[in-house]
């Protein structure tokens, strides 16, 4: 009798396990989840990732803590290469994306990732690029600064976080708009080192994250001349014009979108579960408070919105970078 019962039950159990996928997701997550950040500890992406994931361990959120791991190097290429090729797709290894950085790098080639390799979960923030100059700089408006660049091609030194990151994209767009050359100086130490170069007067100006530039201008060490976005940032910089308003044809393509993604091949039910829970987690009041305190603009987008944003950026950047070659 027992034997008969067993022979009936075992195939049924196997069938149940294979057909009803969510069974697998029900246990998930049973241990802490790690999120890979491809920039160094202490950078804008890193500390924002730490803030937006800090309530993950609560029972009403994901129910397991999220641990940040940093894999910095070569403008993010090192981390994303690792994420595309080596990260386990069991739902316990997630990553942070930076758009347009990884898309621009994948179009330029020489890396092992593209939008095809990653599954977005949700977006938490958007950090526009801004143009800054040192506090003692003779330039007080973006027009004065860029007029200098028009008259002296290749002489306006502007620091930025690296090649093919948002800052570089903004520089390329400005070059296209003013039909002249800039001297874009990528730095090894990311946005912080680029900002140091501006404050210390190593360069004439710089392109940097709004959040970092806002802090530096509050500290009185830089002047912010323009925002590379389609509208002004009312929350932090209501008086700074957009490049568009100043008469340059530069849109929001360089805005740095940050969010969470999973590697290709992660079980769909895990992705669905995260795509539902993660944006809800970002809405948490405590996170909003800490992000505002840190000077970081939030922009919460769900998985479908991110998928659409990725494909738009992919199309635009392919065109922009093709022009350059």
């Amino acid at each position, binding site marked *: 009798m027992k034997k008969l019962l067993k022979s009936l039950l075992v195939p049924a159990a196997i069938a149940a396990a294979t057909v009803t996928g969510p069974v697998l997701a029900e246990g998930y997550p049973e241990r802490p989840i790690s999120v890979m950040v491809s920039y160094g500890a202490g950078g804008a992406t890193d500390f924002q990732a730490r803030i937006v994931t800090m309530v993950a361990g609560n029972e009403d959120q994901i129910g397991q803590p999220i641990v940040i791991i940093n894999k910095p190097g070569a403008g993010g290429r090192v981390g994303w290469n690792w994420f595309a090729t080596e990260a386990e797709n069991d739902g316990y290894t997630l990553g942070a994306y930076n758009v347009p950085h990884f898309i621009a790098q994948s179009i330029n080639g020489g890396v092992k990732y593209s939008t095809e390799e990653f599954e977005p979960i949700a977006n938490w923030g958007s950090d526009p690029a801004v143009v800054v100059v040192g506090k003692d700089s003779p330039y007080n408006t973006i027009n004065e600064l860029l007029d200098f660049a028009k008259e002296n091609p290749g002489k306006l030194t502007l620091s930025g976080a690296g090649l093919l990151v948002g800052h570089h994209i903004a520089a390329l767009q400005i070059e296209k708009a003013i039909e002249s050359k800039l001297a874009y100086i990528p730095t090894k130490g990311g946005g912080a080192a680029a900002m140091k170069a501006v404050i210390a007067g190593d360069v004439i100006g710089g392109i940097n994250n709004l959040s970092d530039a806002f802090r530096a201008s509050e500290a009185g*060490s830089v002047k912010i001349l323009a925002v590379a976005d389609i509208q002004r940032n009312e929350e932090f910089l209501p008086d700074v014009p957009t490049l568009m308003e100043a008469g340059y044809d530069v849109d929001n393509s360089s805005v740095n979108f940050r969010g969470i993604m999973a590697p290709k091949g992660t079980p769909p039910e895990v992705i669905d579960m995260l795509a539902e829970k993660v944006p809800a987690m970002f809405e948490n009041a405590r996170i909003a408070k800490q992000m505002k305190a840190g000077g970081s603009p939030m922009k919460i987008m769900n998985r479908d919105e991110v998928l659409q944003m990725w494909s738009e950026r992919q199309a635009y950047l392919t065109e922009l970078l093709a022009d350059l070659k």
Partner: protein
Amino acid sequence: MEFLQYFGGVFEPMAFLLLVGGTIGGLILGATPGLSPTMAVALLIPFTFQLTPVHGLILLGAAYTSTVAGGAVSAILLKIPGAPANIATALDGFEMAKKGEGAKALHVSFLASGIGGVIGVLLLIFLTPVLAEWALAFGPSHLFWMAILGVTVIGSLDSKSFVKGLLSGCIGLWLSMIGYDDIQGAERFIFHDALTGGIHIIAALIGIFAIPQVIEMFSKGRQSADVQVVTIQKQSFADSLKILFARKKALCIGTVTGSIIGLIPGVGGQIAGLLAYDQAKKFSADRDTFGTGNPTGVIAAESANNAMVGPSLVPLLTLSIPGSPTAAVLLGGLLIHGIFPGPDLFTNHPQVAWTFINSMLIGQILMVIFGLYIAGYAARVARIPPAIMAAAVLVLAVFGSYSVQQSMGDVYVMVSLGIGMYFLEKSGFSAAPLVLGLILGPIAEANFIQGSMIANATDGATQYFLTGTLNLFLIVLVILSIGYSFWSSRSSKVAS
């Protein structure tokens, strides 16, 4: 004297408890091979979510201070520096331990750390506005010359063979070029996927120092259980103080070098210890005994790497520029609590800023007290038989190198470099110049490339790199350093 008002905050029960806990925890984490100060601070950030900003910062500050000093414990007892800052400590510290003077080395190391550290924090308290100007004076061309100055030390760091010392340095410089080129993004010397991210300095440090020690312990074979890794003689505290104050010159050189290097953003404390060690050696009458267990070397190195802690926070607190990887992590910790560092930090959040700085001052003193206490236990560590020690260090090395970036590739790099280094050392090459090359390579290259790009847009490379007071001053130092190396290698040949 505004800071005196806020001393009370440090001694509130909760704050003081965190300070003591952070100091002891930091010493232990620092002494664990593979856990660098940067990592220890990064790993502690999640704990600060639950704390008030003041308490969170006290914890981070205490951990930063004490991990730097804790790294000396494993450097002295096992020849495994806990962080790049402690490499120079191992050069003489381990030789002292081999002679049975491990406790003496630990005593002078903690005392020198404490004195250097307190002076560093006092500089931070009193001279911040002046020093901030200084920190900004160093642009790409100056940092390039600083790195070259570091490279010139390579030849004299290895007292055994001039050629092999330089060659070790070149191997280190080459290893630092592996991986994606940071500025252009081109692939360089990537023979295996584990190398795409380049060679992480901490993984390399563990491999290059710990693995040869493990193999060295293997080579002893199955010896009787009484054979100890090192013996430790009893050491009186008063005698240690006497040794320290008989070497005031080394203490001064260490503290001054450490404070200056700490201040310069982008060089960081990694080379402070090595440069101070080299300077102390050059200015010492008994320079031939360096590397054979001379306490002067330990004093110079340790006073330098703790003196660097205070000044390294100057650019961070006044200009919001993190000058070192650890300062970058601290910046993240501040921002999470909504505190923006900047000139008005001390007017907007005096409570937070001053309590943090005061706690570092008290933390330095606590660090010395607990450090000396730990030194007493070091004798027990040394009584562990080689078989257990070898197995334990290997397992710790694997866990430590993996945890740096949670990457298996770092473990492969660590063990490959380690086995290679064992055979290189047996052929007369040395580890310290190799690691120095590994640290300086990226600093020299990135600043050279960045400098050239700026130079191309302005007055040209000659003008940019070769004019200006600071450039000329550094170039003179480079020439003096090279000239000295040649002169001393010649005169020592004549002597022999």
